[in-house]
């Protein structure tokens, strides 16, 4: 039995969706369309002479080994950020869900880092890890370990992953906690009566019931790692050392805004657009089938 509300005629529905359509058109389709248009040109920075080059910008990109490298870097970076930020958030949410006293305070404190903008998070962490003045790098130095993310690729990647994870855990925590609290306690109690211990209950009942939340968060976190981590990378590594932390979106910035190569930058944005579209379709098409709603 499905209940459906429907309107007669077309005027009112059209009127009601117009604002949404307008916003989408002005803020999404227009800029995206401009990027696609520009990706076919090789303009000079001032826009004085704009030459049509067809797909030459894309050719140029795919013949560039550093661009391919950037794909690989992005894949590693976003997988790590998604995995860690969701794993830690789930663990904390499960613990917070079982709290009886002080749950409110604990939950509120955990949400704080979300209020910190990525660029600020990057700077805060530099107080700890700056190669010369950072607190933790100083102590590591005393222990005989020379922390240098300016030259060590793994340390650089580890650091940007850690900061990006840290500033994302709160967001995931919030959703996981809400998801956990939405699971009817009767099911869990029934399982407990049947003799299932906590971890068994978690893996066989709670985790599957949580899968809509988990699925939603995977999409959100991948998108976050792709785009919103720009501030973290810009303040900590600037894509270095070498290009070891140059993720795709950072390359769009450095080619477009530092290199003033708008054609290539636009072509890269188009590729990013396609990747994100593809990821979303993939997740909805295939992952959705295995998700309990």
């Amino acid at each position: 039995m499905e209940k459906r509300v429907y309107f007669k005629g077309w005027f009112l529905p059209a009127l009601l969706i117009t604002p949404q359509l307008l916003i989408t058109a002005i803020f999404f389709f227009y800029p995206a369309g401009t990027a696609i248009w520009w990706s076919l040109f090789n303009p000079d920075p001032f826009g004085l002479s704009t030459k049509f080059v067809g797909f030459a910008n894309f050719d140029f990109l795919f013949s560039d080994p550093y661009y391919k490298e950037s794909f690989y870097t992005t894949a590693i970076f976003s997988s790590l950020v998604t995995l860690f930020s969701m794993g830690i958030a789930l663990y904390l949410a499960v613990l917070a869900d079982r709290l009886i006293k002080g749950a409110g305070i604990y939950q509120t404190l955990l949400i704080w880092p979300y209020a910190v903008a990525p660029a600020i998070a990057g700077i805060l962490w530099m107080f700890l890890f700056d190669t010369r003045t950072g607190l933790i790098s100083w102590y590591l130095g005393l222990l005989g370990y020379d922390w240098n993310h300016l030259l060590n690729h793994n340390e650089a990647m580890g650091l940007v992953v850690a900061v990006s994870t840290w500033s994302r855990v709160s967001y995931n925590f919030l959703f996981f906690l809400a998801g956990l609290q939405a699971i009817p306690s009767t099911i869990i109690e029934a399982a407990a009566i049947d003799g299932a211990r906590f971890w068994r209950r978690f893996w066989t009942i709670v985790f599957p019931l949580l899968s809509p939340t988990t699925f939603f968060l995977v999409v959100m976190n991948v998108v976050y790692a792709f785009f919103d981590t720009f501030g973290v990378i810009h303040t900590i590594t600037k894509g270095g050392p070498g290009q070891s932390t140059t993720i795709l979106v950072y390359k769009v910035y450095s080619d477009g805004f530092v290199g003033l190569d708008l054609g290539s930058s636009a072509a890269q944005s188009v590729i990013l657009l396609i990747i994100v579209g593809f990821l979303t379709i993939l997740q909805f098409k295939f992952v959705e089938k295995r998700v309990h709603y």
Partner: protein
Amino acid sequence: MIQAKKIVSMVLMIGMFSGTALSATEIHWWHAFKGRLGTLLAEQVDQFNAAQSDYKVIQNRKGNYSETLNAGIAAFRAKKHPHILMVFEVGTATMMAAKGAIKPMYEVMSEAGAKFDPDGFIGPVKGYYTTTTGEMLSMPYNSSTPVLWVNRDAFKKAGLNPDMDLSTWQKVGAALDKLKSSGNKCPLTTAWQSWVHLENLSAYHNVAFATKENGFAGMDTELVFNSPVQIKHIQAMGNWAKEGKFIYAGRRNEGGKAFRAGECALYTESSAGYAGIKKNAKFDFEIRHLPYWEGVKGAPQNTIIGGSSLWVLSGHSTKEYSGVAAFLSFLSSPVIQAAWHQNTGYLPVTLVASQKTKKSGFYDSNPGTDIAGIQMTRKTPTSVSKGLRLGSFDQIRGMIDEELESVWSGKKTAKSALNNAVKRGNVLLRRFESSNR
């Protein structure tokens, strides 16, 4: 009715008053300076505004050098651009190629009938912003050149004579050995690695950085900074990095923090580091000439400049350009120039300012502040030591940074890193050439 008349006449009066107050033509100047440099810049503007009433210069900071250039370009595309835009030396080729966006400085000056003598500028500075046919396109504002900063106390602590000869890299190498073995944690650090250790190194040893006179003679230039001299130097630096004698601090001037804190013994940085080091260093410091490799023919030649120049953008009225001309002549006047040089450590870009500073006894009471000027002007620049004019150069520098980092971390040899940087950079030069043809 009467009330309405009153209001109208009041409005008219207000209009007239504000009319007189606003009759000064506004000249907008976008720049990249903050902190002490920003304050000094604002003082120059205030001084100009106070000295006359026809024009009012309004200065605005738009971020760092790259961001300022970007802001200018975006504004130009939106037809809301300022009259004067500060562009760092790296962006010179980009601006020169943008023929319809700029109004060459010589043209601004001659149309306004302003007093302007291009020959008043010192050679290497003038050359940087002048076309091969002798037309000066932008007004040199702040120019500096790299020098060697020495922490004399660190030398004493290591048992070295702080007055020792540090004119060659061979001698610096020996000092680094001693500093390291005596327990110094940061014998040498640097700012702007590509600018100091490749661009200036090349000019200083009279070897080409790029073909076609480093790009001055044509956009079909190719990078050639992978010759034996550059490889030798970068390899030596790489070895020092491996042995803990050269400490890499970052791509810009991050090394300055450690040097000013007294941790580092030697620091290669722009002469304009003077303001900050003088203010913060709690140790005995000294400025020396940039070292060179003994045995390289023609070395030391001269070093080249870094810094910025002021570009006048096209599309404004004649009246406004007169104001721009008046302001630029004001900026290049000896008093302003001499004060700027003495306060900041930037080079005196006009000959008169240099003589004025010398006469005032400034160099005697601030020893070493004349080193940068001497280093740049003691020899007539050759075709490969007058500067660089390369498109997409900010991005090419980024590539050089990446390749140098792989040498400092020991992942690559200097030879393979420089070969790779040349190869990668040339791709961008061809792309720049094709988009500006």
